[in-house]
């Protein structure tokens, strides 16, 4: 496909990406979008750490600091970590189950554009100069008291992006339920597919509460609602419950796919089957289930009473059990294997001690009376960065190196990759380890500055230096990507040589229809089984070469989302301007018309003929791809 793309004009290529419904292209779009926001959130983090470098610093104002922490958290969770993971899910999961696309290609594209426009909406707040400033949790009393349109950007931007996430979740679920290749039973699915499955199920049940919560916030701020205004009978604790009923599953939605990526890396670079696969699957499902039972551990200090606190404390600790099972199964996977330390493996190896440390501090905070001390101190900042950076971000970076050759047909430079890892890993521990103690020493989180003479100066300086090292690591990564793209050395189907799952048996990058013939799966690690039995293609076809049905591209997802984006501005300004209401109505009508247009047309897709596929197979043979 890429050679064809190069011959076309820029305009045609641009149109192709705008209208694409190919899961691989959408995956790449997610990675680009998420990568952009990751850098943005990183810059915000750097400014935060610079401000806290020394006591009584006034690099940024108090108001701007709150803008920065809010946008850093919101951006990293909703606009960086999730979309990047969605990028991997989109690209890799259908390949792993032997599918030609996701179940709803149109909705897949819609989900991406909603994320993109939602993120754009949120960040336009910087240009307007009214930025969300109530923290990423946006607790109701403060979010209602906040002046300007900052919180409105938060409520509407996340509403749009969150809708996209929900669609993506349903899409992945249906894809995995309905579109597995023959023989790909549930208990033969690669672990990344399993974690995608469970994370998607969690999205399905966790995002509707967020939708409702954000609507309440929108109503209260823009349409005279009274959900959280206690003078009108409202209750701010409702927001806290709703937010955390969403928010706690959300962190598992992030970490489970990360677990999946690491499971792939450990097996490939240990040349060994995942140890205790059924236990791993069970632990994943159990974590997903328990993830919904523990939200109130974020609210131990709200005053829910000792009984509620005790119940949620014990439930929280219970999650440590399945997580521990996972850690030990990974250890036993590399135990007795043949370990080669490539860049992805380096990230996976760095993940184990980092994540264990983040996990155990989580259990410590599960002990409710202890959490009365740790809650909202720097200890919690250290804890969640240990699990999210030490878990999710390491998985993202490791996964990027692992799947880059599959996605773009060229390898990221290994040496630069390892340099990135070292800077990032050392910087990460340097930044966040010391923050546990800052919490012990009484430093609350989300403080714009701190007075001299409280014993916090050195620790904060160490932390800021660590952040700098992480930034250097990311810069090296960017250099690596630019160099790799420039060099463009092509690689074959399985550049890591020990690929075990279906995606490593097709060309890099795969043709747009993925598999010339749907593969037959005969066990866990299908490609490994085929190769160890002498079938060096790694694939056994389940059918003869025949016509392939593929969906048509469409610009409608883009247009629909654009309508919502416009409507968002209308909602925000309808109280103070005369144009607000018409714009709100126009935007919604626009979306509705676009949606109706979609539902009225017969869009049945097209067929790739047998002959074209045969031609591709022959070309690939000539090029030595098989």
């Amino acid at each position, binding site marked *: 496909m890429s050679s064809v793309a190069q011959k076309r004009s820029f305009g045609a290529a641009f149109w192709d990406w705008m209208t694409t419904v190919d899961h691989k292209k959408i995956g790449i779009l997610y990675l680009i979008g998420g990568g952009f926001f990751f850098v943005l959130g990183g810059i915000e983090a750097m400014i935060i750490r610079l401000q806290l470098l020394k006591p009584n610093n006034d690099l940024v104002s108090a108001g701007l600091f709150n803008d920065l922490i809010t946008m850093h958290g919101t951006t990293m969770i909703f606009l960086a970590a999730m979309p990047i993971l969605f990028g991997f899910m989109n690209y890799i999961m259908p390949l792993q189950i032997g599918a030609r696309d996701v179940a709803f290609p149109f909705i897949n594209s819609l989900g991406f554009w909603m994320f993109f426009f939602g993120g754009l909406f949120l960040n336009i707040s910087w240009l307007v100069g009214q930025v969300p400033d109530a923290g990423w949790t946006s607790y109701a009393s403060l979010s209602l008291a906040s002046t300007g349109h900052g919180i409105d950007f938060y409520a509407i931007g996340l509403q749009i992006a969150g809708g996209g996430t929900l669609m993506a979740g349903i899409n992945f*679920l249906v894809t995995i339920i*309905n579109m597995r290749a023959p023989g790909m039973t549930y208990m033969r699915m690669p672990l990344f597919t399993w974690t995608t499955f469970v994370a998607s199920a969690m999205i399905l049940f966790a995002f*509707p*509460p967020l939708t409702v919560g954000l609507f*309440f916030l929108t109503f209260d701020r823009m349409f005279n*609602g*009274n959900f959280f205004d206690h003078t009108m*009978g409202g*209750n701010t604790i409702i927001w806290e419950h709703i937010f955390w009923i969403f928010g706690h599953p959300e962190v598992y939605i992030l970490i489970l796919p990360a677990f999946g990526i690491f499971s792939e890396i450990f097996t490939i670079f240990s040349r060994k089957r995942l140890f205790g696969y059924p236990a791993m699957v069970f632990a994943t499902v159990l974590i997903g289930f328990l993830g919904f039972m523990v939200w109130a551990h974020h609210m131990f200090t709200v005053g829910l009473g000792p009984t509620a606190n005790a119940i949620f404390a014990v439930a929280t600790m219970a999650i440590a059990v399945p997580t521990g099972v996972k850690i030990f199964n990974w250890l036993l996977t590399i135990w007795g294997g043949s370990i080669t330390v490539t860049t992805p493996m380096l990230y996976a190896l760095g993940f184990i001690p980092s994540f264990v440390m983040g996990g155990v501090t989580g259990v410590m905070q599960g002990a409710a009376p202890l959490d009365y001390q740790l809650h909202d101190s720097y200890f919690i900042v250290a804890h969640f960065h240990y699990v999210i950076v030490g878990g999710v971000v390491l998985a993202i970076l490791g996964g990027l190196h692992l799947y880059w050759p599959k996605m773009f047909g060229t390898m990221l430079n290994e040496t630069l990759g390892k340099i990135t890892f070292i800077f990032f890993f050392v910087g990460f521990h340097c930044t966040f380890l010391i923050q546990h103690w800052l919490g012990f020493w009484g430093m609350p989180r989300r403080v714009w500055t701190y007075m001299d003479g409280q014993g916090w100066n050195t620790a904060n300086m160490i932390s800021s230096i660590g952040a700098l090292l992480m930034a250097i690591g990311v810069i090296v990564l960017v250099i690596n990507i630019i160099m790799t793209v420039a060099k463009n050395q092509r690689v074959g189907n399985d550049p890591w040589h020990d690929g075990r799952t279906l995606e490593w048996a097709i060309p890099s990058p795969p043709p747009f229809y993925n598999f010339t013939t749907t593969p037959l799966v005969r066990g866990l690690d299908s490609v490994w089984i085929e190769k160890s039995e002498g079938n060096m293609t790694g694939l056994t076809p389940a059918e003869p070469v025949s016509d392939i049905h593929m969906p048509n591209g469409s610009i409608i997802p883009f247009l629909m989302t654009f309508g919502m984006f416009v409507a968002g501005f209308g909602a925000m300004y309808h109280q103070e301007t005369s144009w607000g209401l018409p714009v709100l109505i126009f935007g919604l009508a626009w979306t509705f018309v676009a949606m109706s247009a979609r539902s009225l047309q017969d869009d049945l897709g097209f067929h790739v003929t047998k002959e074209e596929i045969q031609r591709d197979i022959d070309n690939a043979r000539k090029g030595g791809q098989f």
Partner: protein
Amino acid sequence: MDLNKKFTPETWPEHPERATLEAKNKFVGFWLFLGGETILFATLFATYMALKNKGPSGFEFSTQELYELPLVFVMTLLLLTSSLTSVYAMYHMKNFNFKKMQLWLGITALLGLGFLSLELYEFSHYVKEGFTFSNSAFSSSFFTLVGTHGFHVAIGLVWVTLLLFRNAKRGLNLYNATKYYTFSLYWHFIDVVWVFIFTVVYLMGVIG
């Protein structure tokens, strides 16, 4: 899938709503979507129950005085009946009887429209009494819960109208059979939610 393929009641598959992969995807996907919707309504219900009868100091409205059961009872009858008529429609869909299916769906839509009109009347009645959306936490949560349901009914009406007109000349095929089927699922879901609203909001409001 070929749109021009002509079916007879004999060749029409037993489960037309999941006869193709696309249809199966829609079928499963829509069920999952309804799962998410359930959570959405559960959150709205929980909020309503927490904020029921809560208002500013000197608040004069309460569920006992506000709600009028007879009207709500008629609404309930209309919506329950419309659920039944949509079942008839699906029966005819499975038997490849396009005309009768369209007819029953038309009746379903009319009943839904009746429900929606009564709900709008109910709301305007409350507003006239001073029980507006911004009157109190109670009113906000009431209008949001019941209004979200009403909004779902309105969406359903637009949806079925589009289906009826769009396919009037095309007739029934494997491509639109799933669309009809998911609509009927959706309509049942709305009905079930209403049963809960009737019980939790109205009955428990007046009696409890």
